[in-house]
């Protein structure tokens, strides 16, 4: 399955239709963006597309109204949609999920006035609503979406896998086994057992009817009845165990809420500190800008002053030339007059004849008539212009630091955007999440801890009960087997052969499936452990970490000198989770792209470098929504090399309008 194109319109900050074209090359597509540009909205848009809901810490999953673009609302445009074109070998799917106003409503006021519609175009044919829904659920089952659509913050959730009997851990484990294809085998084993039980009943009915085996058949029938009762009890116990695990899951979730509240309060504190820091930076930058602004008018005037000087100089030059030309002609006339008066040319000493003197006189008259010196006005103009030029030069408007001012202004704008994002998005979402989290007092935490302990005790008791019943069933099966042997011996030459063969066959099938589940599960665990270790070591910056060790829940421990590393940090937790996800993708029969809204702020630059280098190994297509400040773009390009298939940028036109542009800024 490959993504071909993703489109979004009137959703969050995306006012107009914006598209992400995935290439047909394997590798990583990076979308660069500053905070507040709409990265998380893209993740939410994918959630909306696949599951018809929008995950957000500040709104309910069906709060669609708040996702209509605000400029769109002003323009009377209320519908939004996301669209994904997929290819699967030769098949093309176009999935469109729309949120539209309900029939009869012209101006929606809340999500209650909106309705979600799903359309799927499969190879040019529009599927029915049911088929469309089924197909989208098959393409991306919600339970396993965490392995395809994830943000780095969520990666820590995988640490619960290390805890045995954890409710959340069990849910994730089930999702992992689902992605790895294990249910195909476990369902097979269950079905084989049902068939075997049915055949055993049929066989026993036949045994009771034959007089040579009737007595043994009755005994066996009683054992079969007992076994059936035990199996029913086992079923009940397993249901009880499941209920307890669900309860544990709820307790875990509540515990997580408490932990989440603590982390939200921490986060709020960090955001408030960041807001104060940013305000300080803005004040400092503004002071610098205001200082520069004082002289900005002079820098604005530099070029116009130069242009004016040039224009004045051109006029001065024309007038001066005219003045100089007249002066030169007067000098020539003086020479000519001197030649007439002295009878000798002052230049070459030639003796002038009277004819020549007449000719010179004529020439003097002609030249005098042609001499055009400066008029009084022109003289005044020349004088005025010369004075103005020197006046303008004395103004000293020779400097231009507008480029420095422009940089300061840009820095100031960026800080303001950062502050708006911190305040309007980050702080607002944390505050909303905190206000929705009322379960915080100590009594509540104590009660949760008590319930968790009780639940664990009950789980232990149930597990013991299950073991006891399973042992009892095993005993009964042994007895039944022994009776079956006796019946077999006594029934030679009877009609029982076919019924017995059916039982033997179904037993064999059941054994194959049961064994296959265990073997496949163990093999998967080993493969996942091996692949996760391989990826982990590529990402690890600690030379003494030598492997990852998997537990029955697919939880992974970091091993050093053959021993687990205790108290690993949140950053390492995420690296381990990355490794697990990569390993699951390598081993899962279900293929799909990985889309990650990644926060890399937990990592050192060396860690980042290694993690980025490993991204192409997570899946054939990886879409990374990258925060500009957290990843060095040039380093990422170098680390990914040819595996970076394209780069895009979220470009903020204004707070209501973001565009997706090809290329990096």
């Amino acid at each position, binding site marked *: 399955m490959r993504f071909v194109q993703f489109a979004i319109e009137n959703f969050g900050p995306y006012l107009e239709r914006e598209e992400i074209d995935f290439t047909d090359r394997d590798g990583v597509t990076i979308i660069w963006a500053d905070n507040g540009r709409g990265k998380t909205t893209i993740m939410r848009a994918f959630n909306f597309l696949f599951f018809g809901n929008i995950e957000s810490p500040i709104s309910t999953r069906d709060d669609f109204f708040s996702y209509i673009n605000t400029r769109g609302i002003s323009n009377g445009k209320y519908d939004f949609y996301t669209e994904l074109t997929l290819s699967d070998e030769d098949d093309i799917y176009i999935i469109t999920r729309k949120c539209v106003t309900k029939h009869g409503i012209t101006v929606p006021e809340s999500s209650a006035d909106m309705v979600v519609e799903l359309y799927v175009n499969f190879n040019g044919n529009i599927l029915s609503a049911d088929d469309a829904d089924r197909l989208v659920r098959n393409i991306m089952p919600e339970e396993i979406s965490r392995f395809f659509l994830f943000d780095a913050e969520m990666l820590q959730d995988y640490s619960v896998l290390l805890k045995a009997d954890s409710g959340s851990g069990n849910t994730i484990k089930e999702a992992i086994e689902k992605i790895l294809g294990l249910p195909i085998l476990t369902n097979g084993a269950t079905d084989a057992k049902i068939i075997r039980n049915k055949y055993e009943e049929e066989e026993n009915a036949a045994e009771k009817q034959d007089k040579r085996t009737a007595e043994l058949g009755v005994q066996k029938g009683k054992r079969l009845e007992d076994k059936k009762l035990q199996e029913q009890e086992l079923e009940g116990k397993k249901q009880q165990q499941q209920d307890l695990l669900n309860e544990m899951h709820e307790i875990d979730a509540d515990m997580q809420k408490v932990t989440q509240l603590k982390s939200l309060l921490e986060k709020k504190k960090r955001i408030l500190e960041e807001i104060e820091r940013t305000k300080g930076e803005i004040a400092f930058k503004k002071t610098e800008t205001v200082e520069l602004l004082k002289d900005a008018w002079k820098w604005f005037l530099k070029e116009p002053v130069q242009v004016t000087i040039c224009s004045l100089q051109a006029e001065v030059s024309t007038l001066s030339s005219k003045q100089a030309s007249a002066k030169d002609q007067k000098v020539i006339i003086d020479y000519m007059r001197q030649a007439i008066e002295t009878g000798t040319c002052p230049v070459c000493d030639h003796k002038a004849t009277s004819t020549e003197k007449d000719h010179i006189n004529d020439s003097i008259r002609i030249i005098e008539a042609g001499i055009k010196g400066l008029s009084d006005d022109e003289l005044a103009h020349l004088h005025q212009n010369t004075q*103005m030029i020197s006046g*303008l030069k004395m103004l000293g408007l020779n400097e231009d630091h*507008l480029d420095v*001012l422009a940089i300061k202004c840009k820095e100031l704008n960026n800080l303001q955007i950062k502050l708006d994002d911190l305040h309007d998005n980050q702080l607002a979402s944390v505050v909303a999440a905190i206000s929705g989290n009322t379960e915080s007092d100590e009594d509540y935490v104590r009660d949760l801890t008590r319930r968790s302990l009780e639940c664990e005790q009950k789980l232990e008791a149930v597990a013991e009960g299950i073991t006891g019943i399973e042992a009892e069933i095993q005993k009964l099966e042994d007895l039944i087997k022994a009776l079956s042997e006796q019946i077999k011996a006594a029934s030679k030459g009877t009609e029982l052969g076919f019924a017995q063969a059916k039982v033997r066959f179904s037993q064999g099938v059941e054994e194959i499936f049961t064994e296959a589940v265990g073997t496949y599960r163990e093999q998967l665990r080993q493969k996942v452990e091996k692949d996760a270790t391989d990826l982990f070591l590529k990402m690890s910056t600690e030379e003494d970490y030598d492997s990852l060790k998997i537990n029955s829940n697919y939880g992974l421990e970091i091993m050093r000198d053959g021993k687990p590393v205790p108290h690993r940090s949140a950053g390492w937790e995420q690296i381990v989770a990355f490794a697990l996800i990569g390993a699951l993708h390598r081993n899962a029969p279900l293929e799909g792209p990985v889309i990650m809204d990644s926060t890399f702020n937990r990592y050192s630059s060396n860690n980042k470098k290694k993690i980025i280098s490993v991204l192409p190994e997570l899946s054939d297509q990886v879409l990374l929504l990258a925060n500009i400040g957290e990843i060095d773009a040039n380093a990422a390009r170098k680390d990914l090399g040819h595996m970076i298939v394209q780069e895009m940028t979220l470009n903020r036109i204004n707070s209501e309008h973001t565009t997706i542009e090809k290329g990096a800024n």
Partner: protein
Amino acid sequence: MEDTNQFALTEKASKTAQALKSEEWFSDASDAGVFAAAYIVKKYPEFDPLTYIPHDGLGSKYNYSSFDPDGTWLRFLQARYHTETPRVCMKSLINYGLECISDIIEEHGIIRISDFI
């Protein structure tokens, strides 16, 4: 036309100068006026202050010297526009400049100095 040492800005120009002052981009409204005049000279060279007639004179009144204490503008405007009424010229530039700035601020919804650099 007579050159004048005292003039009033338009209401719109006056409000813009006050806004730039109250947002602390300039310590004085007259500094904002000088910035606006220079902005027009640089960015709109085709603007002719000699033919421009301000909409009204309902804004604050100023002495010309508060905009040009050392006569820099006077010399520049005389040379640039060959005018005998450089103060009237300055009045036009300030009014038009502040009104242009006001329109841009209104369009963006915030005062962003980078829009004028």
